[in-house]
């Protein structure tokens, strides 16, 4: 499955190419068009991530078209090679190998689940190329996964999700919180982040359970937690285990509330359990930078490419920003920059201080004029910390009559 980059408007591309050529002629041979800079779009087209994957991939292609229409980045055009992770670490390793060895891509963009990103990271590190991901596991922040500082995460870490859960629990007036975590880095990351933030606010976690996947029943785990009479149970969980736990909880006739990550408390969960059992569940997911001009540009591209509103796919906004970030860093680093030189520019163009910019063309013009820029993304304000992590805002959804209803947004 290989698609090449294309411009939606041939005339625009020719115009862009012509202006780049004109620029090259005026400035001299140093800015001559190099070979295209290849990007691997490695997204979950099939498997558990399939609701998001094709939108993510289309937005990489759309963003590349925007960059190329503005004359490319660092004197080079971008080219996309698309692959499917199948939301499966083994399949993604094969696809990443192919992208690196056959297609010789210089960056891999848009890996989705933590298992996939952790599996692909050693390959991109060995090849000395970028890996921009949308996964939550805390392990992606540090070595060995992020040994060379070439990993950038456009989604919130599980720890930040946990902090958001604590904000919400306070806002909802909960007093007796308990936690249940799936026994992996992501699940425990959520509840550990919650516990730290919750206790820092002077509260106590009344019961905590870490459970194993693939159980026929979670009744013993539930009884342990419920014995502490919590008013809310905070989850670090995934869809299948959440389905079983909530079914058993509802059948036991309990009435406490739940705070659950958005990838577990989603429309599939409502389908599985019905409107009654899911009424009042609080589902938390990161939300895009919806009021920014960059989001408007993304939203328009998303509607053109998929026919759906950009707000429906937070991950697609992240992959859009991946291309913009990479393009601007290439532009700032200058022609024929190597990975290290581009890497050195990523925080420079994305973080404050600097002129806030929202589109590639405007940002490129500001760079050309010698000004320091601070790209404001469609997915978040996109300021990377020393680990390459960002801090998006979080949407708080209540399940009401079988529908996810967003009530408010929290910032951490």
């Amino acid at each position, binding site marked *: 499955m290989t698609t090449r980059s294309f411009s939606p408007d041939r005339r625009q591309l020719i115009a862009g190419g012509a202006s780049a050529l004109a620029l090259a002629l005026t400035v001299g041979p140093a800015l001559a068009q190099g070979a295209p800079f290849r990007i691997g779009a490695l997204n979950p087209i*099939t*498997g*558990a991530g*399939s609701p998001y994957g094709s939108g993510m991939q289309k937005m990489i292609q759309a963003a590349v078209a925007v960059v190329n229409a503005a004359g490319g980045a660092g004197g080079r055009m971008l080219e996309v090679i698309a692959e499917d992770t199948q*939301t499966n670490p083994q399949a993604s390793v094969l696809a990443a190998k192919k992208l690196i060895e056959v297609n010789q891509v210089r960056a891999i963009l848009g890996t989705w689940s933590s298992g996939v990103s952790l599996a692909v990271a050693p390959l991109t590190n060995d090849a000395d190329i970028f890996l921009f991901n949308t996964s939550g596991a805390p392990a992606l922040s540090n070595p060995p996964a992020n040994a060379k500082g070439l990993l950038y995460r456009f989604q919130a870490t599980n720890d930040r999700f946990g902090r958001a859960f604590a904000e919400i629990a306070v806002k909802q007036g909960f007093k007796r919180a308990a936690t249940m975590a799936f*026994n992996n880095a992501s699940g425990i990351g959520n509840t550990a982040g919650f516990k730290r933030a919750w206790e820092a606010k002077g509260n106590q976690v009344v019961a905590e*359970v*870490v*459970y*194993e*996947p*693939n*159980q*026929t*029943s979670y*009744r*013993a*785990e539930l*009884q*342990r937690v419920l*014995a502490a009479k919590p008013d809310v149970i905070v989850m670090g969980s995934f*869809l*299948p285990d959440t*389905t*079983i736990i909530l*079914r058993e909880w*509802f*059948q*036991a*006739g309990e009435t406490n509330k739940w705070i659950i990550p958005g990838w577990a408390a989603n429309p*599939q969960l409502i389908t*599985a*359990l*019905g409107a*009654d*059992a899911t009424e009042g569940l609080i589902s938390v997911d990161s939300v895009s930078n919806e009021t920014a001009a960059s989001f408007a540009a993304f939203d328009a591209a998303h509607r053109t490419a998929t026919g759906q509103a950009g707000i429906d796919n937070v991950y697609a906004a992240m992959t859009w920003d991946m291309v913009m970030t990479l393009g601007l860093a290439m532009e700032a680093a200058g022609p024929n920059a190597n990975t290290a030189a581009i890497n050195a520019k990523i925080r420079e163009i994305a973080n404050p201080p600097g002129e806030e910019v929202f589109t590639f063309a405007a940002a490129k013009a500001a760079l050309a004029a010698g000004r320091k820029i601070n790209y404001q993304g469609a997915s978040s304000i996109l300021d990377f910390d020393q680990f390459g992590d960002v801090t998006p805002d979080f949407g708080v959804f209540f399940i009401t009559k079988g529908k996810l209803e967003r009530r408010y947004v929290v910032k951490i």
Partner: protein
Amino acid sequence: MIFWIELVIAGIVSGLVIGLTALSITLVFGIARFPNAAAGDIMTAGAYAALWGHKATGLLIVGGLAGAGVGAALGLAAYWLIFQKLAGRAAVSLLVASIGLGFLIRAVLGVMFGHSQQVFQMPLVRPWRVEGVRVHPQDLTLAAVALAALAVAFGILYLTPVGRRMRAVADDPALARISGISPQRVMTALWLLAGAIAAVAGGILGAKTVVSPEIGWDMLLPAFAAAILGGIGNPLGAAVAGLILGIAQEVATPFVGFTYKLALAFLVMLVVLLVRPRGLFGRIEGVR
């Protein structure tokens, strides 16, 4: 006290699933003489068939029968296409072939139904209170299905001529053969029965949890532990050991911690192999 009784009830239902799977494994081991690693994936196929049957009619019993039918067909196909051809080879060749068969079934199910979870759409009902103990009607239904399957399986084994022949082959294949028992017919009966039992277990598991292509594979370890605990090749032992393991897993977790639930199955297997290799009900078996 109520807390513990409720845990035991939850354990019985889990234990019946483990016991049924262990019964399927132990039958194959006793008669065809190899550990069948495809049992878990036959369970999964049974779960999808039961899901389909339940969706079409809304009746759990139809789902169970659909599962049993598909499982029996799958067992028979596995015998005709693979295990018959490998008859007489070392047990390890058959084991490896069964692992391959498991992969194949899982992959086909993944392609046919996708990897996202599906559920039995059953109304969620509140439990009955019996002397303060919560009893879930759904648990009772599933336990009844499991007990019915066990009754049919033991009826076939102990009350029918083909069952007697199967037990004769399990006891001593050479003696059975010179007594005029056709191994082919016994094998056919074995695979029909073993496939159907595993598939019913899968259907119950799917109704209790969620249905996805990996559910059966994940049950394989506790099922093997139960088969060993019960004395490998001993049908009654497998069923009883499954129950013991299911109850032990639920009741022990408040003490040992929930992350060690599965480790308990390992531990049981280890202790049995070290202390009493013939299992609870098995007899000492010489190398033939």
